[in-house]
């Protein structure tokens, strides 16, 4: 079995069986990562470029580590230190990299749809590492994989995504992924940070975080981007933290042990308090660990080597 797509542009384009295949493959790689030698020779013949037009630390490191664990050769390209600042176009930049015989491109970009644009103009496989306010597919995959790991399955589970839904590619990819796997999804946050037509994607909308927590089995708490403060979307971080931040006393009042997730980086004391982020209900560091296995799986499957049969 192989993936139904040549690129991973978004979860939107995946079939549920693609996601299942990625999870099965990630299960295998997660075992590899527990071994003394955390490395397989599968992609010795593959060169991958990590092209980041937007700052990223954890996603880039996670991808790079996944590539190294697969024995691929990697090169890193960051826009700030590159010819992009000299006015080079995206097509030129990527074609220059591909001219050096690169097989796969992992790209992060601030413009929604940029991976689509690239896929229409180049031959190599593209993995979207986050595009604008559109998708962040590997994050959604690792989130759902982590829910599956903690709760046994994703189907039928209730997941509340809390925070800035409007500007979040993590939210959109999570909605697609969880829907395809049969989970129920709710988004919660200030009305100005929730897109007007989000219900059309088959999610519930809640403005009261407490009610969202009461409903959910899992809360995926999103980062509030501090620069949004300067737009008229909410008043102050103080008010946000008071009315939308997740704290331990809220969780304790629920009479259930729900799962807490966060894609990072965390603004402690804003969207989530330390007593929640560091609690045993939190699977934040499991998400990070699973990120490597999921990215190994995606890269491996897109390289066209076929399903791992044990």
């Amino acid at each position, binding site marked *: 079995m192989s993936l139904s797509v040549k690129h991973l542009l978004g979860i939107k384009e995946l079939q549920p069986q693609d996601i299942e295949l990625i999870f099965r493959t990630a299960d295998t790689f997660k075992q590899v990562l527990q071994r003394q030698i955390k490395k397989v020779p599968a992609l010795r013949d593959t060169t991958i470029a990590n092209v980041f037009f937007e700052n990223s630390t954890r996603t880039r490191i996670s991808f790079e580590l996944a590539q190294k664990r697969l024995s691929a050769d990697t090169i890193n390209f960051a826009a700030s230190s590159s010819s992009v600042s000299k006015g080079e176009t995206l097509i030129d930049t990527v074609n220059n990299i591909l001219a050096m015989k690169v097989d796969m491109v992992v790209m992060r970009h601030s413009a*929604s749809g940029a991976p689509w644009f690239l896929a229409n103009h180049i031959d190599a496989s593209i993995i979207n590492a986050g595009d604008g306010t559109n998708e962040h597919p590997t994050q959604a995959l690792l989130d759902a994989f982590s829910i599956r790991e903690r709760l046994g399955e994703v189907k039928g589970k209730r997941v509340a995504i809390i925070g800035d839904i409007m500007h979040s590619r993590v939210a959109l990819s999570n909605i697609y992924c969880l829907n395809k796997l049969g989970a129920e999804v709710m988004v919660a946050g200030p009305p100005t940070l929730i897109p*007007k037509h989000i219900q059309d994607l088959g999610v519930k909308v809640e403005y009261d975080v407490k009610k969202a927590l009461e409903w959910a089995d899992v809360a995926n708490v999103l980062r509030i981007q501090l620069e949004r403060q300067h737009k008229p979307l909410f008043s102050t971080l103080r008010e946000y933290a008071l009315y939308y931040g997740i704290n331990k006393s809220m969780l304790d009042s629920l009479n259930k042990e729900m799962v807490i997730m966060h894609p990072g980086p965390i603004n402690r004391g804003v969207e989530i308090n330390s007593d929640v982020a560091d609690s045993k209900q939190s699977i934040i560091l499991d998400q990070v660990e699973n990120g490597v296995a999921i990215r190994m799986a995606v890269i491996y499957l897109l390289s066209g080597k076929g399903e791992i049969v044990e």
Partner: protein
Amino acid sequence: MHLLIRQARVVAPGSEFHDQIVDLLIQDGIIINIGKDITAPDARLLEAEGLCVSPGFVDVFADYREPGFEHKETIASGLDCAAVGGFTHVLVAPNTHPATTSKAAVQYLLKKAHGHAVSLHPLGAVTRDIEGKALAEMMDMHGNGAIAFTDGWKPVQNSNLMLKALEYLNAFEGTVIQIPADAALSEGGLMHEGPVSTRLGMAGIPVLAETILLHRDIELLRYTGSHLHVTGISSAAGVDMIRRAKAEGLNITCSVTPYHLALNDEVLTTYNSHYKVNPPIRSEADRQALVAGLADGTIDCIASHHRPQEWDAKAKEFEYASDGMNVQEMAFSIAYDAVNGAVPLERLIDAIAVRPRQILGLPGGGISAQAQADICIFVTGTQNTVERPRSLSANNPFIGKSFSTRVLGIVNNGKYTIN
């Protein structure tokens, strides 16, 4: 120079020969004979299945990019596009560099266009250098040939300035043309705000951006009693507002682009920057309301909103790509197929050839013997694709698409061009 058009259906609402099948003989730019079985052995003969003759089309809003952006389009290449598209009159947007904001700029455009089969009518800027801060010399531009006034792609935002512009033009019954788009509500938006933009993770431009500015302008119009022409109407709500303002008796007219009639926001699904336009392509319900508005006359005219962009300006991430679509050559064909069945050919010709003349006071609009020919010749019921457009730019998603009509040519200004 003789041209004999044989067995053509005349589509000229309000004219003597309307809906008759006749021969037309044209000599030196004058229709010297209309009748049955005309013979003229020396004449160039035009005959075809489904042949029609109508008044030459009028494009209420096109952007030719010269001076300043000659690599995208020039006045010469733009007027050639117009001719290919069946237009004999084109109103040219002032958003050049420098902008059409003075008598000298108006004269420059007229001089550049002189001698072409297509007549160019400069649109002067409402505000000086299209900065939205102070009124431009509209009186002087009018005196030198500016046909109407608009800030084009940068609609006037300041309410007081818009009020004064409308009042100022009452001195000579001038027209303000406005694209209804509130800048603050459109800011950062890339496409129509709706389920599709949400699905695609793209920032939306709400219908509110159209209705808020339209509402303001209608209020101002009620106060000043001037003439306002709204171009590029994109939403059902906008069409409703125009309908009510007309019913109230306000002097408001409006036009729609061919691509808003033809497309809905599902075309954005692949992030193709050819579909990046402003006002944005809206929902299917909006599109249907535009077609209905055209059918019942709420929408008076068709305006191509021709906006050429070179390859590099479009071959970019959607967010960074320039907006606009380059459709003047195919405007009629696109509109015809988009509204086929819902809007009769007669109304479509009225919208693209007759109403604009009435609104702007341009000559022509009929077809009669012993008169200057200002006509478009086209065929219906054909299969036709355009592979290589005449424009200097190719930012046009309709290239290679099949149309059921084809413009064969125009006669105007004593010249004819046959495609």
